[in-house]
């Protein structure tokens, strides 16, 4: 859909970017050493670091992706919130303090602390680059998606803008400026998300979300031999009819504008129900509800069909508490939209029609991950695989791990993780209300689930929309900065300095880091433009699965199994990384992207974690047992 560009949004956006750049140039003067560049001199306060952790972690996938998925599929989106947070438990209880003790600047430093193995340096650096780049792509794609409605610019301009700002942030002051950008963004995201949730609860649940909300029209129809002949409104003329999976869709025209309707024959009187459509015509045009995109006819959707409070139907609840909100949703009926695609008279039709869903199904899993009705062994394994990858992925993300080196002590590392868990946990609780709030307040753009949270804010005024959109943009800036610091560390510190043993002074090390940051930033810009059409959440899930498969076995076994060897670690990284990548490339989701039937994919699972994570552990154990011990594994009790 088309969004109106707001001058408030532009002012807020420019103000934020200038503040961030000012901060970077301020810290740049103080960044002279490699320690200052890669680890902010190890002098960040634990509370600042904790919120910066939240700013780093709550990426576009968390804010835009999860809220959007909840808005479309209810509780299934919230599974990501639960899994992403549970991953922090692994980080706190098992990884935070030992990693702080072992490392210097990067994740490879920690893994290699007791071995001095070139194989570990190389594989850990490559793994850092692969995971960070897979994580970077969706952030850059998200940047393009946000800038388009916010500033009215094309996708590529958004990607280039984020890339340029982030390169400036990272190349000037490295981890120090990155930390403060993430701190500001993390704080703003949580505060403003809370404000939106308070407004949602204060508004309560209403049958009609707003005065200008467009509820789909229903027309009585006349049938002859199962074909629609006419409708109650004589200004419409029937053009054709199409059957798809037992559903009947009817094409009509009015005043030269074509539209598609769904035939409901449940009642004794057949009815045609208005749908939303995207039609790719034979001459290459794309029409939204029969008109060009600019006409703005592809309206936002999402409303409640029936509200039941204490067994009684009401039109609205009035202001409502968080528990009552969820309870009332569970007893109501909500209108979601289902998508079907088919070809009709040479035109590619994508149709979205109403799907009245019981609230009790919204507040439990099953609308996206098939667990109950229509479940198969594979759909259940997919759910298991996702929950495993989310649980084990967080503590294996290199850009998160490097934040342990920015604080002065193990105690500070632990405390900052607890601040992070509290802040992130609180935000994830808010996502359930943001997502369901968007679902019932006409805040769903069926063309882009990522816009649900900003569009929900828009229902409370353009200023809040502008602030939330600017924060969403800042969210991407913060996460991308962290990823580029991690990647530049992998290139300049792990590969150039440690693996290739290129002799560099402190100043040259910082220079190398800056050049690497610019290089990685340019690669990120190119990939962000190339992957414009890809699904943001899917790519983040990919990064989690690769991190959990390649890095986690190495980290955990190094810390807790004394017979771990350097060969075991490097082989586990290679096998975990390659297996997860190959399984993803052969998965049904990727087959759909290749334009092949999903059912023909040789790998039936969408998420590879359940296979590749145990394989990573197994590889490490077998290779370690087979190889001669190279140096002592770090003893935890020293």
């Amino acid at each position, binding site marked *: 859909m088309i969004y109106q560009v707001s001058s408030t949004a532009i002012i807020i956006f420019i103000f934020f970017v200038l503040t961030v750049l000012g901060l970077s140039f301020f810290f740049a003067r103080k960044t002279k050493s490699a320690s200052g560049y890669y680890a902010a001199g190890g002098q960040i306060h634990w509370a600042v670091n904790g919120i910066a952790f939240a700013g780093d972690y709550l990426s576009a996938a968390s804010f835009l992706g999860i809220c959007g998925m909840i808005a479309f599929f209810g509780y299934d989106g919230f599974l990501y919130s639960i899994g992403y*947070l549970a991953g922090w438990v692994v980080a706190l209880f098992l990884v935070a303090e030992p990693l702080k003790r072992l490392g210097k600047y990067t994740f490879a430093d920690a893994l290699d602390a007791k071995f001095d193995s070139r194989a570990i340096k190389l594989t850990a650096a490559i793994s850092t680059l692969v995971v960070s780049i897979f994580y970077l792509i969706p952030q850059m794609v998200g940047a393009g998606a946000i800038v388009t409605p916010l500033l009215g610019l094309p996708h590529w301009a958004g990607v280039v803008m984020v890339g340029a700002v982030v390169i400036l942030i990272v190349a000037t002051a490295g981890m120090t400026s990155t930390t403060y950008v993430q701190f500001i963004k993390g704080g703003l995201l949580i505060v403003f998300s809370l404000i939106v949730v308070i407004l949602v609860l204060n508004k309560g649940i209403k049958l009609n979300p707003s005065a200008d909300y467009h509820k789909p029209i229903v027309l009585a129809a006349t049938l002859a031999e199962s074909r629609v002949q006419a409708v109650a409104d004589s200004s419409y003329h029937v053009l054709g009819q199409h059957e798809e999976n037992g559903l009947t869709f009817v094409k009509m025209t009015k005043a030269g504008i074509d539209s598609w309707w769904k035939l409901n024959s449940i009642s004794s009187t057949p009815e045609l129900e208005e749908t939303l459509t995207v039609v790719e015509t034979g001459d290459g045009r794309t029409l939204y509800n029969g008109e060009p995109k600019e006409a703005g006819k592809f309206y936002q959707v999402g409303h409640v069909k029936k509200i039941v409070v204490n067994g009684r139907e009401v039109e609205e609840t009035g202001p409502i508490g968080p528990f009552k909100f969820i309870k009332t949703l569970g007893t109501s009926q909500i209108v979601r939209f289902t998508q079907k695609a088919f070809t009709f008279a040479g035109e590619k039709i994508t149709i979205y029609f109403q799907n009245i869903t019981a609230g009790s199904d919204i507040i439990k899993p099953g609308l996206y991950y098939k667990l109950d009705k229509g479940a198969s062994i594979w759909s259940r394994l997919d*759910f298991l695989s996702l929950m495993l990858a989310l649980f084990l992925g967080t503590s294996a993300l290199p850009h998160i791990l490097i934040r342990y080196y920015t604080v002065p002590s193990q105690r500070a590392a632990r405390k900052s993780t607890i601040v992070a868990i509290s802040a992130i946990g609180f935000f994830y609780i808010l996502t359930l209300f943001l997502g369901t709030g968007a679902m019932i307040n006409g805040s769903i753009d069926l063309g882009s689930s990522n816009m649900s949270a900003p569009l929900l804010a828009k229902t409370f005024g353009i200023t809040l929309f502008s602030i939330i959109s600017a924060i969403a943009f800042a969210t991407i800036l913060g996460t991308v900065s962290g990823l580029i610091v991690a990647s530049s560390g992998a290139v300049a510190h792990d590969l150039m300095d440690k693996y290739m043993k290129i002799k560099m002074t402190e100043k040259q090390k910082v220079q190398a880091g800056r050049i690497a940051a610019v290089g990685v930033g340019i690669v990120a810009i190119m990939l962000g433009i190339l992957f414009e059409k890809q699904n943001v959440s899917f790519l983040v899930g990919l990064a989690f699965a690769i991190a959990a498969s390649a890095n986690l076995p190495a980290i955990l076994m190094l810390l807790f199994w004394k017979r771990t060897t350097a060969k075991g670690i490097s082989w586990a990284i290679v096998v975990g990384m390659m297996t997860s990548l190959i399984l993803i490339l052969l998965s049904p989701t990727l087959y759909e992207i290749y334009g092949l039937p999903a059912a023909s994919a040789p790998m039936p699972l969408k998420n590879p974690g359940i296979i590749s994570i145990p394989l990573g552990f197994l590889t490490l154990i077998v290779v370690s047992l087979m190889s001669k011990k190279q140096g002592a594994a770090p003893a935890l009790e020293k």
Partner: protein
Amino acid sequence: MLHEPAVELGKDKSIPKKTRLGVVMFLIYMVVYSGFVVIGTMFPEALGVKFIGGQNLAFLYGMGLIVLAIVMGLIYNFFCTRLEDKLNKEEQS
């Protein structure tokens, strides 16, 4: 600025006990988390069953996992800090 003074990573006598505590707390959380995943996989209909205050199990369990992570984090920090203060003081004296 909120910066603490730089601290050298000195010898910490509490590491073995903190490690054991971390492993025990991780195992407790993992069991609770696994419970949620197993119910979702094997008995999905149970997640729709209503419990306290008219809320279903999915909502209570999911929110509970988030709140539990925060509470366990605070408990872990409390005991770790006490162990560090006690054991490292004994070391110094």
